[in-house]
């Protein structure tokens, strides 16, 4: 087996390993990292300060490598390559041999040679360890300075703001993001950032860092001015980490960087370099997407394919810096021969856009956007594919006068199949089209089969457009109407019912619909009415809307009998209650099974038995478990700090409180919770719609996970929450889901289709961007206040009970139901068993 050594386990190194693992050939892969952690997401490093979780950043883990036979060594640096013997040596004395060696050592931050730059509270911003050091320095600090006003500098600035420091950005150039932005764009960005309380100082050349008077340090500038600060972060650019190659006499560029060819081979054919340490045609690529492309090319080449080459990469980029959208495409500065520029400046809304076009004005060469980067995807395609501009460039710049005009006029149909839609995973329009032809019909499908839009998410709008356009071409009508009876989406119906305070399906149909309704719109509207007003679902006005299970408050099984599930909040149950369940099961000969949600399911109850069974269960102190509803099911919990040696919070108590709060909440689909008392996560909360994991300082909230057919790990939403904040956030997340999801859409798929994804949900729930948080909470309060045990209501209603019998005109039972016994319990007879039973009876 071919031995591969990967030096460096950063984003690109790990991506390379993933590419090798995906190939059909077998390799013996060993990777070395000088850091303590395996590969993590450096692009979103600043989220470490808000989420406080290394795990959320991790791109891989020991388990994954172990499972795939990848050997790894962390905390050890490769210090020498023996090209003759084809082996490497590490700092700690490890030697390993290779057939192919891949250098993916990335880059290191450039620290300007300023006297005093080595003080205790001077840091760089590159690794998790750097972030820990920054946080420690920030503990007793008031003021922080970032040296460098480029992309990385502003990202680092956000970190200082998140740490609660009064933040300054010091830049040598006359404007922010001097590489990407012109002076107008840079000026607008400066204004926006200063609005957030960050002070920007341009044209400042730091000469020395000395002891401060009011703060720890004083930065002395060349113009004689100074700035006092407690903490300094250097973020003034990166340099390729090429020392290992340099020491091994591998060719290095004049200004650094390991020289590579189109196959990412260095001057030594068996040694490759990829990512920010590599120099291709005199260029270093400081973005992750080109690094991923190199990883792909190198992996293919090592696997014996020579058809894939690295031919440079587009350095267009779109980011959110300190909350401001910034994007730059192609020749943003307009340095191409004969090019012309168009600019748009909206000082009121803080939007700046610039277009660079060719001399005849029919091709886009470059662009800049500040404050509004919604056109980025479209413009990037125009640029990358050298597409003709259908109208004058000025039409691209003007805000939409009416829908369908301006920038959105460029339909995705005009794009060639080769157009790259997702640059993170290098997915083309052709691949998305093939996926649709193979049966994909939602964003969730596209994400799972092409990976498009699962990286930075910047292409989600464009991917959706390609998807819809391809679906339309296949004759699939992309209509968001819920069904033939209502020309509205579920969300629109929800808004109508909420705003107009509509109380019944009939009222909604007569004013907003047509015809007699169907099996789609009736349960959907029934669910919306229940989510908003929480009336008794078997009321005359609502009964006809209830689906198979809801209409008899039980789960119909294949033979027409029902299963019964009493609620067991948090999975905590007394021996007396267990006995009561056992007695009911025994009396009615019900098949008994423990569920995954920590409760007990009783199968085989016939219609007429349901009310009697429930009377007994209610007398024993049980309530309905809503196992039949698209509603809150269970809150699974581990035993928590009350008993467990490792637990740090009372997970059972929290689970019971949450289950009692949200029981009876009807939603677009079922909702499951999990609460774990420590990070060992015994309640498997990360596979639940709402997952809660205890930490020393409170609760971590995870959202939109799922087990089942398409498992999805829940996303970390917030950490270290107190009880009140936790409940507040859950109220808002759930009600926002209830409002905006499609019918029968679980939270996991809802999240994957949500424009803006997790960040958007955080903005809505935590920052209250839509100004609806109070409304969401009061809607939830209304549901909580109007809770009733539907079975209790039903058994006290003589007329309702009439429906709980097989026949309206006789007490006879359904003769078609028959059972056989298996492992000490009864189960429905199969069709074959039914026939043989009849024959036996006849013969007898």
């Amino acid at each position, binding site marked *: 087996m071919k031995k591969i050594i990967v030096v460096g386990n950063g984003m690109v190194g790990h991506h390379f390993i993933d590419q090798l693992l995906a190939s059909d050939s077998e390799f013996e892969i060993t990777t070395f990292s000088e850091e303590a952690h395996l590969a993590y997401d450096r692009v979103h490093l600043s989220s470490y300060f808000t989420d406080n979780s290394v795990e959320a950043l991790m791109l891989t883990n020991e388990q994954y490598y172990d499972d795939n036979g990848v050997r790894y060594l962390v905390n050890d640096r490769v210090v020498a390559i023996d090209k003759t013997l084809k082996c490497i040596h590490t700092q700690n004395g490890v030697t390993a041999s290779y057939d192919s060696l891949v250098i993916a050592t990335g880059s290191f931050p450039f620290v300007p040679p300023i006297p005093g730059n080595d003080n205790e509270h001077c840091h760089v911003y590159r690794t998790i360890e750097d972030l820990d050091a920054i946080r420690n320095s920030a503990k007793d600090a008031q003021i922080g300075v970032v040296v460098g006003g480029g992309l990385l500098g502003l990202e680092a600035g956000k970190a200082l703001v998140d740490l609660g420091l009064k933040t300054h950005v010091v830049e040598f150039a006359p404007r922010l993001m001097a590489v990407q932005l012109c002076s107008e764009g840079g000026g607008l960005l400066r204004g926006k950032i200063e609005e957030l309380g960050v002070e920007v100082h341009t044209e400042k050349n730091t000469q020395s860092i000395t002891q401060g008077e009011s703060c720890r340090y004083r930065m002395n500038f060349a113009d004689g001015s100074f700035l006092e600060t407690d903490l300094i972060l250097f973020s003034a650019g990166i340099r390729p980490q090429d020392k290992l190659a340099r020491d091994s006499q591998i060719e290095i560029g004049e200004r650094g960087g390991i020289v590579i060819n189109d196959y990412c081979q260095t001057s030594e054919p068996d040694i490759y370099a990829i990512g920010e340490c590599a120099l291709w045609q005199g260029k270093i690529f400081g973005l992750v997407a080109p690094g991923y492309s190199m990883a792909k090319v190198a992996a293919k080449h090592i696997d014996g394919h020579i058809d894939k080459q690295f031919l440079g990469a587009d350095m267009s980029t779109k980011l959110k810096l300190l909350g401001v959208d910034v994007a730059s495409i192609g020749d943003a500065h307009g340095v191409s021969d004969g090019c012309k520029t168009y600019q748009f400046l909206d000082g009121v809304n803080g939007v700046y856009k610039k277009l660079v076009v060719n001399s005849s004005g029919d091709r886009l060469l470059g662009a800049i956007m500040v404050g509004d980067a919604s056109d980025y995807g479209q413009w990037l395609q125009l640029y990358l594919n050298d597409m003709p501009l259908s109208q004058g460039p000025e039409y691209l710049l003007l805000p939409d006068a009416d829908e369908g005009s301006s920038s959105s006029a460029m339909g995705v149909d005009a794009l060639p199949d080769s157009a790259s839609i997702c640059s993170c995973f290098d997915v083309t329009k052709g691949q998305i089209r093939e996926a649709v032809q193979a049966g994909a019909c939602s964003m969730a499908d596209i994400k799972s089969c092409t990976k498009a839009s699962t990286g930075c998410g910047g292409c989600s709008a464009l991917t959706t457009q390609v998807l819809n356009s391809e679906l339309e071409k296949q004759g699939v009508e992309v209509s968001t109407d819920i069904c033939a009876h209502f020309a509205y989406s579920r969300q629109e119906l929800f808004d109508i019912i909420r705003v107009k305070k509509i109380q019944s399906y009939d009222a909604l149909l007569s004013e907003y619909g047509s015809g*007699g309704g*169907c*099996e789609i719109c009736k349960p959907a509207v029934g669910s919306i009415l229940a989510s908003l007003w929480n009336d008794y679902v078997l009321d005359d006005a609502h009964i*006809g809307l209830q689906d*198979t299970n809801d209409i008899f408050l039980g789960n119909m099984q294949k033979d027409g009998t029902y299963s019964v599930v009493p609620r067991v909040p948090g999975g905590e149950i007394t021996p007396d209650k267990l006995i009561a369940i056992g007695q009911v099961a025994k009396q009615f000969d019900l098949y008994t099974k423990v569920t995954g949600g920590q409760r007990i399911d009783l199968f085989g109850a016939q219609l007429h038995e349901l009310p009697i069974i429930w009377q007994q269960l209610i007398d024993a102190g049980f309530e309905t478990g809503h196992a039949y509803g698209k509603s809150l099911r269970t809150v699974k919990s581990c035993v928590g700090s009350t008993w467990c040696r490792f637990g740090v919070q009372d997970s059972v108590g929290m689970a019971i409180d949450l289950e009692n709060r949200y029981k009876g909440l009807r939603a677009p689909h079922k909702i499951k919770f999990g609460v774990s008392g420590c990070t060992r996560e015994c309640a498997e909360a990360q596979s639940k719609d709402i997952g809660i994991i205890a930490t020393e300082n409170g609760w971590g909230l995870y959202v939109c996970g799922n087990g089942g057919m398409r498992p999805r790990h829940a996303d970390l939403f917030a950490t270290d929450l107190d009880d009140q904040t936790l409940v507040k956030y859950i109220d808002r997340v759930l009600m926002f889901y209830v409002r905006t999801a499609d019918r029968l859409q679980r939270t996991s798929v809802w999240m994957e289709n949500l424009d803006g994804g997790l960040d958007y949900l955080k903005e809505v729930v935590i920052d209250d961007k839509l100004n609806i948080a109070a409304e969401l909470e009061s809607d939830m309060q209304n549901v909580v206040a109007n809770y009733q045990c539907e079975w209790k209501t039903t058994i006290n209603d003589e007329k309702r009970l009439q429906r709980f019998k*097989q*026949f*309206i005109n006789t007490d006879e039972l359904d003769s*078609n139901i028959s059972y056989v016994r298996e492992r000490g319990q009864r189960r429905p007879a199969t069709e074959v068993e039914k026939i043989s039973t009849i024959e036996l009876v006849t013969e007898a």
Partner: protein
Amino acid sequence: MSQLTSNDGQPNWVKVADKSQLFPNTGVCALVNQQQIAIFWDQHKDQLFAVSNYCPFSKANVLSRGLIGDYQGQSMLAAPTYKQRFNLETGECFDDEHVSIAVYPIKESNGEILIAA
């Protein structure tokens, strides 16, 4: 149309319930001559329907517990088990032309629900 007829060929109407026993826009089941018959009251149209209670897809006696509505302007019953749709007037399955269920004459007279038997 399947029909329960008397010897002289005339429909033999049998009372199965009072109208007041029905619930709007949903079904109940009656046993008539050992045949299970699903009865629906569509309140919007104020119309009654009677079809076999046996679902040929799930092979269970459950159709009275299905949901009713319209499909392309025709009265429709969706099976509670796997959601196949049937024409309530003719018994034909909208989703599978090879399948149909029996339908029965039904009427209301003086507040009583009668089925031909």
